[in-house]
């Protein structure tokens, strides 16, 4: 807590990725460099998760859904967000 670590690593692949990422086209008065930074950091943050692929639990879940009844599968998997069997929340019209 009283010590602070200086970031000592060399510029890694991330540095290159940040420069290489394509920013969104902008016309606002925001600092361009900041915009590029925001756009690429947002994408890198997001893609860190995307690149983890599909965790096995979801493969198993869909496999079960293909072969068993939804009631059985949902019953076995009721998690934090359970209660999914009320009215469907589709396109919030």
């Amino acid at each position, binding site marked *: 807590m009283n010590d602070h670590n200086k*970031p000592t*690593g060399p510029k890694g692949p991330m540095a290159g990725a940040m420069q290489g990422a394509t920013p969104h086209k902008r016309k606002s008065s925001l600092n361009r460099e*900041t915009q590029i930074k925001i756009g690429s*950091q*947002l994408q890198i*943050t997001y893609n860190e998760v995307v690149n983890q692929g*599909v965790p096995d639990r979801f493969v198993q879940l869909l496999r079960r859904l293909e072969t068993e009844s939804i009631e059985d599968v949902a019953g076995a998997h009721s*998690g*934090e967000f359970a209660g999914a069997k009320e009215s469907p929340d589709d396109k919030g019209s």
Partner: protein
Amino acid sequence: MSSPNPSVSEAMLRAVPSLRAFAISLCGNVDRADDLVQETLLRAWANLNSFEPGTNMSAWLFTILRNLFRSEYRKRRREVADGDGSYAETLKTQPEQASRVEFEEFRTALAKLPQDQREALVLVGASGFSYEEAAGICGCAVGTIKSRVNRARTRLAELMSIESIDDFGPDRELKAVLSGGGGSNG
């Protein structure tokens, strides 16, 4: 009960990685995000008849996920407060040390955005949805999405430029250590 349909489950599986990324940006917590994705898949499967074939499966799933999160969020608003540092714990793999401080700053700033703005920014800026698709997912007008995205970018830029002013003090690294638990590298 829905009839088994491999192509539907394939399409759902293909959407899982980006659903997770979106869910994490909403919850700030991997475990809750994965539960949210799971509930999304279950609910989608149970309501396949409300999916219009030929439309965007991914957008449909995002809509369900967002609605689930919203209804859950209303129930437990206090716990969801997504303060500094929770993003740091969400990701097992950290960027290189040199850029890590910047990423922590970015994630902290992102977590500070109002939820409406954050989701609009993520949908358009990272998930790759058009403004129209994002408006469909969020159930609002296209113009609303555009203004939320713009406000999100402006706010992030403010937060980040304020933080970069601290570059010539120790605060920057200290803050990263505090928020990222990064004092134990090596």
